Structure formats: structure tokens, C-alpha cells
């Protein structure tokens, strides 16, 4: 494995690790107050590793909801990852399937965003492992820490750090928007559709992000394909 590229991956994933810190800490704390032991809480972070699903499961567990429903809800919440990993696959270096199966476990909204917005044509396996590992470590370690200390960060810091992952998403998006009208359209249209679903309450968060993303990606692609065609046929006309 390329060591240099692995280290670069660790570096690129550092902002995810920082963003996960307060979220994992709070998860550990909430898990404790929901009656989970440190092993039960940490095992969930180790084996499931999905922030939104884990938070949801705590709510459902404390309400005594049927485990099958908890699992179903988790699946629905994570369906969007089908779309993300299919998109990521286009950008990943060709690799043995079982190796891809390992780093696939580390794909979250955040690691996907960091990987998929890289400028390189192809992303190396070692780099993906670096990004995934540092984010995962932060998630697992700070879940346990949150359970052990059983207290949160000072209120002002907790509040401020809740912006971290969103600031990271903004930091990944804005540089790509520069001088690229297609990227601007993609993000804006998806945001508007997602906002519509959020405020009307038609779809739950997991579905909403999935539908908004897909609708925007297809819509913009249609516009651009048509645009290209028109340009091409326009050129031919001139040729005639």
C-alpha cells in the first residue's frame, strides 16, 4: 500500500475527525442515559458506524420500539449510500473487490464528500483507507469517551462545534463551485428540493436527501446533454 498517499488520506480526513468529536461524544453520553453499557454503546459505533441511525436507534430503544422496526428504519436512513458509493465507484482506482469491501465500511456522508470532491481523476485505495480510518477512529474513541466521562463539553463549545461538519461540507463545495456553473446548479437545485421536502414534511431526512440528490443530478445532466447536442448541431449547420 502506498504509505504516502495513506498519510495524505489521514490528513484529508482530519476535518471529519474533528467534526465527529462532539457528535460521538454526545452519542456516548446519550447512550449512557438511555441505559446502554459502555460496551453496548461503543460496539454500536464499532459495528454500525452511522451517526444518524445510531441517534435514531437510541430514541427508538428508549421508547421500546420493536427491534425489527429499528433495523428497518436504519436501512431506510442509509439507502442514500447506494447512490453515494455508486458515484464514488466511478472515481476510485480499480482494486480487488474484497479490499473495496473493507474501505466501503468507512463510507459515510462525510468521507464520501471528502473523497468524491477530490480534484484527481482517480483516487487511490490507500488514500481512501486514510480518510476512512481517521474518521472511524474519532467516532469510536469519542463514543467511549463520552460514555466514560458522562458529561458534555462546555455549552458554548458544544454549540460552536455542532457547525463543524456543515462548515466542512461548505468548504468542500465552494471551491468546486468557483467558475463551474454546473456545480452551482447541482448544489442549489438539490438544496431547494431538499428544503421543500423538509419544510413540507413529505419525506423523512434519509429519503429527502436521496430524492433531492437524484432529481438534481438527473435534471442538470439532461440540461447539459441537450446543451451539448445543440452546440454540436449548431456547429454542423455552420459547417454546411
Amino acid at each position, binding site marked *: 500500500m502506498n504509505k504516502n498517499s495513506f498519510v495524505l488520506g489521514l490528513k484529508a480526513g482530519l476535518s471529519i475527525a474533528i467534526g465527529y468529536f462532539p457528535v460521538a461524544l454526545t452519542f456516548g453520553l446519550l447512550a449512557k442515559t438511555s441505559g446502554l453499557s459502555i460496551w453496548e454503546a461503543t460496539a454500536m459505533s464499532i*459495528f*454500525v458506524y452511522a451517526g444518524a441511525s445510531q441517534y435514531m436507534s437510541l430514541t427508538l430503544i428508549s421508547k421500546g420500539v420493536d427491534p425489527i422496526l429499528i433495523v428497518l428504519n436504519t436501512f431506510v436512513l442509509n439507502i442514500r449510500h447506494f447512490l453515494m458509493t455508486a458515484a464514488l465507484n466511478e472515481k476510485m482506482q480499480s482494486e480487488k473487490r474484497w479490499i473495496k469491501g473493507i474501505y466501503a465500511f468507512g463510507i459515510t456522508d462525510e468521507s464520501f464528500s471528502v473523497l468524491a470532491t477530490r480534484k484527481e481523476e482517480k483516487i487511490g485505495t490507500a488514500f481512501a483507507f486514510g480518510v476512512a480510518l481517521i474518521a472511524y477512529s474519532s467516532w469510536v474513541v469519542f463514543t467511549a469517551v463520552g460514555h466514560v466521562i458522562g458529561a458534555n463539553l462546555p455549552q458554548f463549545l458544544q454549540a460552536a462545534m455542532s457547525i463543524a461538519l456543515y462548515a466542512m461540507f461548505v*468548504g468542500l463545495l465552494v471551491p468546486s463551485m468557483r467558475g463551474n456553473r454546473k456545480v452551482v446548479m447541482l448544489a442549489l437545485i438539490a438544496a431547494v428540493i431538499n428544503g421543500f421536502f423538509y419544510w413540507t414534511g413529505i419525506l423523512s431526512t434519509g429519503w429527502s436527501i436521496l430524492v433531492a*440528490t437524484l432529481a438534481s443530478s438527473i435534471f442538470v445532466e439532461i440540461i447539459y446533454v441537450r446543451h451539448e447536442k445543440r452546440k454540436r448541431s449548431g456547429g454542423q449547420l455552420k459547417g454546411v
Partner: protein
Amino acid sequence: MGAWYWWTLIGMAIVTYIPRAVPLTFLEGKELPPVVSGVLRNIPYAVLGALIFPAILYVQEGNLLFGLIGTVVAFTLAILFSNLMVIVLGTIGVLAIYSLIF
């Protein structure tokens, strides 16, 4: 928690892993039609739009102003600097100062 907890956890782990692993492993080495791969190439930027908005406004429940300030600061820093750490830590810093004062 009883044994059911561990069964639930295993179930959650499986249904979380499937959407992550199936496309990456099954699509390996497969050439997709240009239209499909064109749409897939758009996904990252559309996802970011949907992940950011409107959730960024609601990072602090019941405090829309907090989210708005965070949004403005994050976008401003992202326009001024390209370094991700500067953007993330800078936004946290400004909001920390804000919540200390108010």
C-alpha cells in the same frame, strides 16, 4: 439491555453495510452507459447541496440566528480560504466567541 440488543445491533450493522459495499464491489470494473456515469458524476455536488441545506440552519435547536451566522461565516471563510481546516476551525471559533458573548 438483553440479548435482543445485540441482535438489533447486528441487524443495524448489516443494513448499514449493504448500501455501502454493494455498489463499490459489484460495479468494480464495469463500464456504465455514458448517461448513467454522467449522472453519477453529478452526485457529489448535489449531495453536498442537500446535506448542507437546510440542516445547517438548525444545528442549534430553536436558535435559527445561530445557524444563520454559522452559514454566513462558513461561506465567507470558504470563499476567502481554500484550506478546509481554516474553514472548519474558523467557523467553530467565531461561533464559540458568539455563544460566549450571547
